[in-house]
């Protein structure tokens, strides 16, 4: 999470006529999640997970639409969504590489892994390669310290990383043709 308000100077995002919260998503969330909680607002995290899986990030317009859908103020949605690291508000590459930097991983050489990735792909943590294939992030503990150093590639955990091998794996991913776009990314996306 972050308590810094970033991108404050960013111009207001362009609108599109077609809603991000499609009727299908709305129905799905309303049927599955509204009965689970006494208040509709509690469906906010599940809804954003759904949007994240659909679009890879949370578009700004979706925040307005969510406020209408859940019957809460836009500020309340913005307040919540800006708190959670997994809900990125800008588009990222096809593969998001989250390298753990916490103590167990650093003790076992996570810095070397990250340095190798930076060197090979020419991006710093938080940046995306020019071909929009790879976004590199540095994250705190992933809860897999016995497999240190470890990283998430989208939603898949990769452990016992060895810099050269891992970079080769990433290069293979980024070279693979992907005509179907994001939704067809060959990683296990959990649809909940």
């Amino acid at each position, binding site marked *: *999470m972050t308590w810094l308000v970033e991108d404050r100077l960013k111009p207001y995002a362009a609108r599109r006529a077609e809603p991000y919260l499609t009727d299908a998503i709305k129905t799905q969330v309303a049927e599955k999640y509204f009965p689970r909680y006494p208040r509709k607002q509690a469906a906010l995290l599940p809804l954003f997970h759904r949007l994240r899986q659909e679009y890879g990030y949370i578009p700004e317009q979706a925040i307005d639409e969510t406020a209408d859908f859940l019957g809460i103020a836009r500020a309340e949605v913005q307040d*919540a969504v800006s*708190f959670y690291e997994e809900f990125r508000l800008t588009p990222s590459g096809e593969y998001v590489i989250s390298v753990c930097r916490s*103590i167990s991983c650093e*003790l076992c050489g996570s810095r070397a892994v990250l340095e190798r990735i930076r060197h090979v792909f020419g991006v710093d943590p938080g940046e995306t390669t020019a071909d929009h294939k790879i976004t590199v992030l540095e994250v705190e503990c992933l*809860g897999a310290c*016995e*497999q240190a150093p470890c990283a998430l590639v989208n939603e898949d955990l990769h452990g016992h990383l060895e810099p050269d091998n891992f970079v080769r794996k990433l290069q293979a991913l980024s070279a693979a043709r992907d005509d179907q776009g994001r939704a067809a990314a060959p990683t296990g996306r959990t649809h909940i």
Partner: protein
Amino acid sequence: MALVAPILLKRIPAEPAQRRLYRWADYTATGGYEGLQKACAMPPGEVIKLVVDSGLRGRGGAGFPCGTKWTFLPKDIHPRYLAVNFDESEPGTFKDRYLVEHDPHALLEGIAIAAYANRITTSYIYIRGEYHRQAGILEEAVAEAYAYGIFGRKYPGTDIVHNCYVHRGAGAYICGEETGLLESLEGKRGWPRNKPPFPAVAGAFAKPTIINNVETLACLPHIVLHGSAWFKSMGTPSSAGPKLFGLSGHVNQPGVYEEALGVKMSTLIEKYAGGVKGGKYKAAIPGGVSMGVLGTDQYHAELDFDIGKKYNVLGLGTAGVIVMNDQTDLVLALRNIVRFFAHESCGQCTPCREGTAWMHKMLNRIVDGFGRPRDFDLLMEIALSMGAMPGTTICGLADGANWAVRTFLQKFPEEFKARLKCGQVRGVELTATA
């Protein structure tokens, strides 16, 4: 007394190749849900009494007696909720993930027992966002449990239906704090709440709520089946039962190991984790980074809930032991830990938001070779001023930063002071062997 055979890990073999996921059929074939069956034949009050008698203490970090927590629920106020804390985000902690990814029904049986005893309306399993695969495993297991009537049924003699849902977090350490978790469950940012009111009185959706850790709940079927005396026969008088210890860092075989509470750290490292890797033992974190550090002379520390007073650390925490060998640069290690707190501070209380960031900046400066001799006392002063115990913050996150910094400085003063002299070499790598 030491452990004779694994209890919580009885379905997870030590040999990695033999480990697999236990679904409904495998679980029930190996004695699963017998504890629930036995519990349901008892009056709910008896189950609570049994758990109180067993001396089961919370496995999530604070070590608060589980049964006592249950007795705080006000009578006859419904709905009431159980929030399962599976937001395992403390660096060095991975025991709950390991348990659930192999044996998810062990958790669900524990939930069903706790729900039965306390007449819970809805149980929410709050799982951290990064556990994508594990969330899928849990969802499947919950669906199986619904299909076989573990959830979605009325308690006998009442109109209360018990439901159980998986609720996913989205990447925030603070949501592991119990009231932060509740806020996040309600769809808000995970800012911890002031207490009182305590969650048992007004928790999730302002209703009575119990919050229990995954491992705590997984102990319940065994307590119900074998009794409180059996449970107390393991561990020490004040810390009963088996415990999952997660070993990571500089050990040859990092992993989750089960032992009775009170086991010596040296035993865990040598007998289970294959010894210290890359050098001799220098320091270890007993249970997640917020607990502080054990010094070189505390290698044989007995790991139980009383460890705090005996060895000058905050407590046992989550029992995620992080071992550091003698090649480790402890200034860099502390910087890593403080950066974690600075990054994960939710920003609600000024001493924590500003204090952790100050300490991180100071440690950066020290690592860069620009430390000043007075920085030692300054670091200590900032650290000691922050936390719920000194009374300057709402939750315990800042206490974690406080204890990490103070114990590193107290137990390794020479290593820090040497770096605060003029003309220091820049620290580059955390370990020479990494």
